[in-house]
């Protein structure tokens, strides 16, 4: 009776038994909601009773078609939200990543005094409730708030941050004489064409002044969190490599470019991926600080999807928006991983990268850098 197969089967069974709690929890709280949300996006559910009840019928891609092809307020709102979020991502992801890396490099120096204090200080915003931080920023950036008081010292008349819907690109273009500034109508060549119900000129608005405050807040909050990831990555880099570089006479800049950054590639990938996903899904700051105002310039797809479903009762197009957003995130993450992929798959060893520790000639006169204590 005690054949090998049967023992394996018993093993498999107990294996399943052990993983079943996770599968059930994930299925209940992750897979099922996603599947049901997807069903809502292809159904005519109106928010009453269960979406799986018999009165709800399948409408195919109707909600998606309406959202993306029909000339309507919903479509132009969605396009506006995509534009806003695009500029938001474009500014937040690079700045928060570079800032996080810079902070991590600073705090990775063993010579620095009070390291743990600084680490805690920079990480602090990330562990504080976003609601609390958003409320504090509301006060800081109020028309008569601290930020404008500070600008006033330098003789600058600060804007009404949260009431200013002007796009910064429009303002900048106005300076060079294109489009009569932020309030005036844009050039005819750009306003006479549109994409998804939003004119080309409107697509080029850039983040609004109000959006800049949210961007500043998010960078300030998340840089500390990503700094921690970079710090962990840096601690993994063996000091041997730096010593070798030092012996070769590499400059600090060269060491950073040729050793630290390549070795941090996995961490960089993680930070960029998390950053991209997080920024495309921005919701709570918008919900607390602006609700899409002023002039819909802080509207984001995540917030619009919520508003469309909960407040307007348009569940089909609301969930369709969130799945279009999902598609956008997948595409951006795919592009990003393509750009960051290991370009020489031949040398898989961590320290075997091309040009990693090439001798630098002529030996340079600057002080060699190394993790010597």
């Amino acid at each position, binding site marked *: 009776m005690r054949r090998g197969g049967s023992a394996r089967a018993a093993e498999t069974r107990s294996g399943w038994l052990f993983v079943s709690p996770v599968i059930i929890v994930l299925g209940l709280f992750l897979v099922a909601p996603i599947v*049901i949300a997807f069903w809502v996006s292809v159904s005519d559910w109106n*928010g*009453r009773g269960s979406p799986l009840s018999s009165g709800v019928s399948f409408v195919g891609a109707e909600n998606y078609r309406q959202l993306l092809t029909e000339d309507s*307020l919903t479509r132009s*709102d969605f396009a506006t939200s995509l534009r806003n979020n695009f500029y938001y991502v474009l500014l937040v992801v690079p700045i928060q990543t570079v800032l996080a890396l810079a902070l991590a490099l600073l705090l990775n120096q063993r010579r620095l005094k009070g390291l743990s204090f600084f680490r805690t200080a920079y990480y602090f915003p990330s562990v504080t409730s976003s609601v609390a931080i958003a409320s504090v920023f509301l006060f800081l950036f109020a028309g*008569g708030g601290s930020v404008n008081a500070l600008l006033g010292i330098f003789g600058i008349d600060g804007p009404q941050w949260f009431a200013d819907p002007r796009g910064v690109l429009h303002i900048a273009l106005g300076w060079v004489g294109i489009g009569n500034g932020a309030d005036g109508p844009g050039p005819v060549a750009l306003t006479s064409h549109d994409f998804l119900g939003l004119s080309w000129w409107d697509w080029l608005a850039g983040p609004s002044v109000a959006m800049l405050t949210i961007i500043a807040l998010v960078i300030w909050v998340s840089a500390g969190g990503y700094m921690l990831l970079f710090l962990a990555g840096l601690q993994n880099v063996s000091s041997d490599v730096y010593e070798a570089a030092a012996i070769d006479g590499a400059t600090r800049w060269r060491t950073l470019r040729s050793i630290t950054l390549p070795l941090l590639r996995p961490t960089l990938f993680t930070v960029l991926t998390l950053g991209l996903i997080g920024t495309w899904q921005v919701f709570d700051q918008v919900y607390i600080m602006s609700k899409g105002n*002023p002039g*819909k310039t802080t509207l984001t797809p995540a917030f619009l999807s919520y508003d469309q479903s*909960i407040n307007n009762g348009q569940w089909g197009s609301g969930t369709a928006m969130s799945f279009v957003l999902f598609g956008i995130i997948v595409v951006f993450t795919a592009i990003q991983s393509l750009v960051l992929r290991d370009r020489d798959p031949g040398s898989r060893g961590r320290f075997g990268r091309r040009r990693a520790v090439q001798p630098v000639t002529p030996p340079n006169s600057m002080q060699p850098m190394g993790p010597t204590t």
Partner: protein
Amino acid sequence: MSRKTTTAAVAACLTGVLALAACGGGGGFDSGADSGATQPTASGPVTLKFMITSNGPADVKLQQDTVKAWETKTGNKVEVIAASDINQQLTQGFAAGSPADVFFTDANVFPTYAKAGNMLAYGDQLDMKSDFYEGLVKTFTYDDKFYCAPKDFSTLALIINTDMWTKAGLTDADVPKTWADLETVSKKLTTGGVKGLVIGDTRDRVGAFMKQAGGWIANADQTQMTADTPENLAGLQEVQKLLASGSAAYPKSVDSGWGGEAIGKGKAAMTIEGNWIKGAVKNDFPDLKWKAFELPEGPQGKGTLSFTQCYGIASVSKNQAAAIDLVKYLSTAEPALALAKGLGVMPSLKSAADGYKAAFPDEAAFLAGAEYAQGPVTVAGMDPVLKDFDTQLQGLPGADPKAMLARLQKNGQAALS
């Protein structure tokens, strides 16, 4: 893991999901498919869930005290729930099939709820139906059915900070009667950090000017948009003129959330707000001395806006009979007047108007507005269109009012068809 086990795992997962889905479907909330149907009545004393919006614990206590007499009389219990975000909480309740039995329903969201079949149309069962103001009954009529009892209502009036008023050398004779008067006094009252007039940047305030110019967003029976008209344009141009002159401003530009805050903080000498300003001022700015006057006339006479809520009853509620009985009780003069007094709003019953006048002789301006007030637009799917119009209005005085009205016309017509 071999391919076979992977397949098995996927299959197991999917089965799990489907089973869950089936459970969800098995809950069965399809019973109330026709919204007018009355659910079987629960026997014996019941506990009604009553969801309200409130400005604080005092409002909640007032509501609890008011229903106490009904509780004693019928033996039922009422659990008053103060919502933090009533729309979201109700929406969750509707989806789960277990919303509150009775809930405050704002005129803005009423058509959305009614269209989705979330509300019971019980209006015709009310014996005091003829005692409600006709305008309010019309507001809560959807698809020719009178859905729910109007709770109370408010109108807009011109609120003046009397200290600033006298300081500027103005007297009772200077209270603005026309748009030109309004421009003059706004200019006189504007000093340094104080704006003469601060008005909210939405159709719920700016719309009053459209009304005074003889226009409105939609026609009387809400079948056609009438946004893109010279009358509405004249209304918006007046607001544009006031804002451009520097003697009027939106609340945001004086660091306030709304007109009441601006006048309370001393950043505005006048504002246009409704009855609710009374409670808000009492709580937040007890030192403010103010007085309410009827809004100045435009080229086409007087115009103000009214706002209202009703007692919605859920179409899936198990306690509909008791819920209707509660609403009937609340819609009698005594409790209605008690609530109106406590909240500062006006009772929806014509028979209670005298009682209100007697209690608040100083607030005649609000009640006077009831005669000619314009109610909100109540068409399902119109809310995002009107919100979009609000967004456009934020662009004043720089933006073009004509383009705003054309946009409102186009979007609104799409929502109507």
